[in-house]
């Protein structure tokens, strides 16, 4: 017993010493490494063609590039292609590959790799192609080793937006999920599920090389530990902290404010009663005040929106639509009476429980609806159930969610409201909208196209397709050791621009 006891004591003393020594040790070689916190692991795929989650795309942005890639102001810049020519009709796209560009494994990028990558995304064997717009491709061929020509079935001046599709080496294309190889400024090193994803600077990158050599994306699933991680020094940067977390952080951190690039709204199932009546939908729009929601749940931050478009889209965004409905309880009640609901009604808002921001918003909406006599019951559901019941099954009355754009084309936000769209989860149906949308898509003249997109937005607002709320503010907390963070109009965390602050 005594020996055993001594063993215990010595073991304990040893570990205590380890515990006390372990604390002070900072990161080795500070400066050539940054740790970025992310709220969830990459659970769909490391393959950029099959990855679907926005949280995955923002990490993969560092590893993969298309023929063109977006910059922080939202313009498409040549990437794997050094140059491209679009014929006047918008039917033939000719891409010249960049000289000397290589994949992370050192192999040069050839026209065959480009063709294999695009063909993979255009393949219709599984129903829809991976990139929906690629169904418009009539032919893709190589003119020579450095030139690829894509011919479309229908003219489309907006097609370039889809050329951000990642170019992968043809011989590794089916192994991308386990061994991702791309052309981006960072290359994949390793991953440990629910722990981290490690990237390293690719020194053979064609463009401006990244500043920081080693990047670790650390998964912090528990939001309560974000502040501790930042203050404790185990994480240098966290995109999307809440206002409350930002307020707790010390002076060592800079809080940068951008936009989340989401259309946050109370999405209504336009096909079920009472929301099949435009007056009822309008009444709900009159009942709410986005400013009040931002004040209560977002510390006054956020940008009001009035249709399915957010401010980062620049010329397509119509701020005037914010005033389509201003809060007017009397008018809302009048509309309800007209629609046959003088005493209001009761409905259920389904909200995915993992999104605090949407849950908070739903709670304020509920209070606002009370004033016009409408009772909203909030039902918190798991993300998985949201996907299957609400998004695919369309079995719901209302839901609060944020919809993001996967490309820089207004189509990314507007196509889903076409009455026949497969992802039209709100069941919006308006012949007028369909006509305007078709006109926009087929137009080759930029002015007419913009005008038609704006018409689409106006119809969504006037028909009150959904109760539009805001584009929430995105707060990025970054240690002041670093500088150079840039916001993108899409989901992207571009680490290559971040450098040490001197």
């Amino acid at each position, binding site marked *: 017993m005594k020996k055993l006891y001594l063993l215990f004591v010595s073991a304990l003393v040893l570990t205590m010493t380890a515990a006390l020594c372990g604390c002070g040790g900072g990161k080795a070689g500070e400066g050539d490494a940054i740790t970025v916190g992310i709220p969830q692991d990459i659970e769909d795929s490391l393959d950029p063609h099959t990855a*679907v989650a926005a949280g995955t795309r923002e990490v993969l942005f560092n590893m993969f590039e298309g023929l063109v890639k977006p910059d922080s102001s939202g313009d498409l810049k040549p990437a794997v292609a050094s140059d491209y020519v679009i014929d006047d009709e918008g039917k033939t796209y000719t891409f010249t590959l960049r000289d000397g560009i290589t994949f992370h494994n050192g192999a040069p990028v050839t026209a065959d790799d480009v063709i294999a990558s695009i063909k993979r995304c255009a393949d219709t064997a599984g*129903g829809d192609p991976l990139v929906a717009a690629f169904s418009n491709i009539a032919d893709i061929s190589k003119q020579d080793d450095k030139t690829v020509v894509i011919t479309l079935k229908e003219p489309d001046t907006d097609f370039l937006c889809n050329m951000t599709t990642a170019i992968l080496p043809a011989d590794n294309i089916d192994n991308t999920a386990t061994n991702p190889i791309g052309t981006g400024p960072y290359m994949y090193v390793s991953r440990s599920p*629910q*722990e981290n994803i490690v990237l390293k600077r690719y020194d053979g990158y064609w463009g401006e090389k990244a500043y920081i050599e080693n990047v670790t994306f650390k998964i912090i699933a528990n939001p309560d530990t974000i502040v501790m*991680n930042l203050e404790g020094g185990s994480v240098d940067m966290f995109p999307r902290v809440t206002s409350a977390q930002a307020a707790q952080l010390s002076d060592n951190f800079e809080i940068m404010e951008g936009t989340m690039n989401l259309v946050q709204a109370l999405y209504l199932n336009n096909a079920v009663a009472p929301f099949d009546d435009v007056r009822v939908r309008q009444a709900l729009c009159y009942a709410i005040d986005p400013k009040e929601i931002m004040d209560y749940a977002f510390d006054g931050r956020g940008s009001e929106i009035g249709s399915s478009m957010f401010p980062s889209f620049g010329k397509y965004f119509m701020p005037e639509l914010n005033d389509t409905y201003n809060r007017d309880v009397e008018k809302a009640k009048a509309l309800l009476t007209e629609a046959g609901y003088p005493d209001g009604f009761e409905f259920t808002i389904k909200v995915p429980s993992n999104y605090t921001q949407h849950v908070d918003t739903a709670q304020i909406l509920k209070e606002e609806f009370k004033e016009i006599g409408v009772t909203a019951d909030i039902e918190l559901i798991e993300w*998985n159930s949201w996907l299957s019941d609400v998004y695919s099954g369309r079995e719901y009355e209302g839901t609060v969610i944020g919809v993001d754009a996967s490309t820089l084309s207004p189509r990314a936000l507007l196509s889903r409201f076409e009455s026949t769209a497969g992802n039209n989860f709100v069941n919006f149906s308006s012949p007028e909208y369909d006509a305007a949308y078709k006109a926009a898509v087929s137009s080759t003249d930029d002015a007419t196209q913009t005008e038609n997109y704006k018409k689409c937005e106006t119809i969504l607002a006037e028909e009150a397709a959904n109760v539009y709320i805001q584009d929430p503010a995105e707060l990025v907390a970054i240690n002041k050791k670093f500088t150079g963070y840039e916001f993108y109009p899409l989901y992207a965390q571009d680490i290559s621009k971040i450098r040490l602050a001197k």
Partner: protein
Amino acid sequence: MTNILKKIISSILTILVVACLVFLAFAVIPGDPAVAKLGTQATPEKLSALRHEMGLDVPLIRRFLTWIGGVVRGDFGSSYSYSMPVTRLIADKLPVTVILTLYSFILMIFTSVTVAILAARRENSVLDRTTQVITQMTMSVPPFFGGIIITLIFGLGLHLFAPGGYVSYKSDMGRFLGYMFWPALAIALPKGAMAFSLLYSGLTAEKKKDYARTAYSRGNSTRDVFYRHLLRNACIPVVTFFGMALADMIAGSIVIEQVFGIPGLGRILLTSIQNRDYPVVEAIIVCIAILVTVSNLLVDILYRVIDPRTVISE
């Protein structure tokens, strides 16, 4: 000896039953891994293609037989979310949870035994009274809350460790153990306090018995009387408690992993349930079942070593 054999066989049966139940549970609960993986990009065609790829279009009974056949050979299939074999995934994370559990178990035994003897030797002293109050308090603090308090005091206040600064055991064992001390402490404290109470009442009862006085009269020091004679008798009810505590600690470590940001089995388990990543969930639950049954078996064996009477009475 045949008794131990019986115990081993019943343990194996328990694990098999758990494996079956776990598989059937996921056949019953709603949710679809294909939907989870495809997210908002799901179309009926893509869903059915992916279900086929995952082998979910096969009838349940055949799926079950293939799975259980694999389990017996140690093959749990491949994770839907992480595109890697489940065995490799778990081999990576299991040591974290096992070390955390053992760590807290050792801490619990050490603190409870030393403090109980210290207090029992000086019954009704100031030391005794203060320990009584402190244990009453620690006993009622659940580990996750204790974890938060520990982080607050020792991490953010005294800077003895960096909260969230988990280091993988593969990159630096020393710093790994250093960090794990704190979560282990959070798990060990409430359990240690309970073990203390049991031991303390055992010791104070034993020390009034005749054999204790005999031990003294034979010239033993107080220390020797306590460690050599009283502890062994006071231990018997506590060992049963230790066994239950060990099983409890495996569960506790899953919770505490969330508080301290430790990427062990718990984190993987929770996210895999959300994603309906069945192969991973099933494998982890089978793993936990094995850990629990094995620890119970060990306690049974230990019991015989400490108290030979159990063997005779059988």
